[in-house]
């Protein structure tokens, strides 16, 4: 490999540029400093602060934000979860633990349901907020809310049990930020929308279902 040919090869891929020539003004430093000061002074006078006064002015959370979980209720106020373990299986962080139990068929309140979670615990500190539990749920019982500032004084405080998750639902359902995205009550398929429209089945040959 000769020097010239490889040199030509190089210039094709990499262009070698000379550093810009320094003139008298740059070598004096002072005009450049004055220019810099003019820029900063301009920002001082005309610049509008970009600051959000956070605790007073809260940021606008997009509707698909993935915050603290909640457990939805059905039309009778019962926990909507059917204890199918799909979310626990889907969870990549292993932060969901469910204890299922069969319903008492003699109880009129639970006559139409077979199974419900006796315990439903999410470790909010372990969760990575990926939203895969929400995607996995066949009855839209678990949802991620727009609460982004959950805090606690101890680790135990941040392990949310069923009652806590249901209370998150009660808190957020009327806040306007986290409306119930699916038809209340009915334990239908996950794409059971509030306005009653049922998405069309996927076209033959696969593909994404249309909304």
């Amino acid at each position, binding site marked *: 490999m000769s020097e010239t040919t490889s040199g030509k090869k*190089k210039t094709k891929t990499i262009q*070698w540029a*000379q550093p810009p020539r320094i003139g*008298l003004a740059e*070598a004096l430093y002072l005009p450049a400093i004055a220019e810099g000061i003019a820029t900063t002074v301009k920002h001082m006078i005309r610049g509008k*602060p970009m600051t959000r*006064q956070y605790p007073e002015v809260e940021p606008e959370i997009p509707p698909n934000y993935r915050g603290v979980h909640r457990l939805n209720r059905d039309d009778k106020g019962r926990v909507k979860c059917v204890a199918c373990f799909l979310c626990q299986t889907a969870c990549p962080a292993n932060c969901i633990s469910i204890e299922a139990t069969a319903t008492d068929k003699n109880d009129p309140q639970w006559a139409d349901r077979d199974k419900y979670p006796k315990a439903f615990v999410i470790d909010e500190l372990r969760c990575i907020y990926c939203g895969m539990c929400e995607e996995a749920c066949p009855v839209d019982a678990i949802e991620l809310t727009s609460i982004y500032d959950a805090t606690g004084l101890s680790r135990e405080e941040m392990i949310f049990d069923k009652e806590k998750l249901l209370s998150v639902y009660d808190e957020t359902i009327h806040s306007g930020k986290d409306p119930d995205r699916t038809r209340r009550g009915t334990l239908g398929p996950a794409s059971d929308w509030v306005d009653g429209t049922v998405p069309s089945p996927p076209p033959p040959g696969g593909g994404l279902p249309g909304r």
Partner: protein
Amino acid sequence: MSIDWNRLWPTLAAIAIILGVVPIIGLYMTFIERKWAAWIQDRVGPNRVGPLGLLQAVADGIKIFLKEQVIPSHVHRPLYLIAPTIGLLCALLSIAVVPFGPVGPEPKGGFRAMVAPGVDIGLLFLMAISSLSAYGIILGGWASNNKYSLYGALRSCAQFISYEIPLGLSILGIVMVTGSLNMEKLVAAQGPGIASWNVWWQPLAAILFFVAALAETNRLPFDLPECEQELVGGFHTEYSGIKFVLFFLAEYTHVVTISFLTVLLFFGGWHFPGLTGAVDATWLGYGLRWLVLLAKVAVVVGLIIQLRWTLPRFRFDQLMALAWGSMIPLGIFNFLAAAAVITFGWNRWWLAPLSLLAMTLAAFWKARTLANRPFRRPSSLVGAATHSSRHQQVVGSKS
């Protein structure tokens, strides 16, 4: 042995003013600096404590006093403890010969706005003491027993040694022509109009002095001893709480001192057109002069803060090249020109065009040498895995 209270009380009063005002100025300068930086960077700045955040400085002060005193186990304890004190001591000592208000050139009794009025080697004393504050930094960095602290301290040492020379050279012209090292006389020689300010016939010296003094304070274009990105915190990495504050108080005291010096030596001190006559002839004139001086100092302090948020940090070789390659030769030239003016009895106004011409010629020469640097084509380096030539940049366009 009796104490002459008539001679003692003005000094004690001036010391009390300095000791009382300097920490407050230091605290509030951090606040002003944060606010100023916020405005430059399109932010709001501290606004939580008090109206407009004005009590932030007080809150910071309380917090820093109540903080835990952490002394790492690996430090050289005596020097570690004494280093911040040396820094602040030198900063406060050097402000002793700086008039912080209008002071007449003739010695007089009663209160004068100066701790040590009538010191005939005032400027010399100031230069000597203020450069001693390098000891605070060097001892602090060494005693911390931390390599980053030591790096910061060594850089500071090199920087102090380099920039002491242009700092001294820059004031020589004024001192020679005025014929005094006494601060009051240096200011009195610049009265009363704008035209007699030193900056007009010593513009190069003013620039050199300001730049060198900025380097002496370790402030941003020259803050290599404490640059956060390279050295964690430089010489004060291992310091916390009140000892850290002492270092910062020393730095801000230095900033105030060099602002005063710049104004007193080059911008006429308390002189302003219309203010004629003796300094303390009337209370109104005295007060107005005080206001003029403080306003000028505030402008210089503002310029220093503005420069901090405008200019990026020098690289160390650039820092050294600036001192040894440009500022010292220019300072020597300025000194020689002033000497020639005195020797041959020329008009001192010849110094202004001469020094500006020298600066332009130096810049011209530097631009020429930079432009004529040999540019090695990449073909001569083909095959080398790593290119070390500093002229090469991988840039998209501009062949």
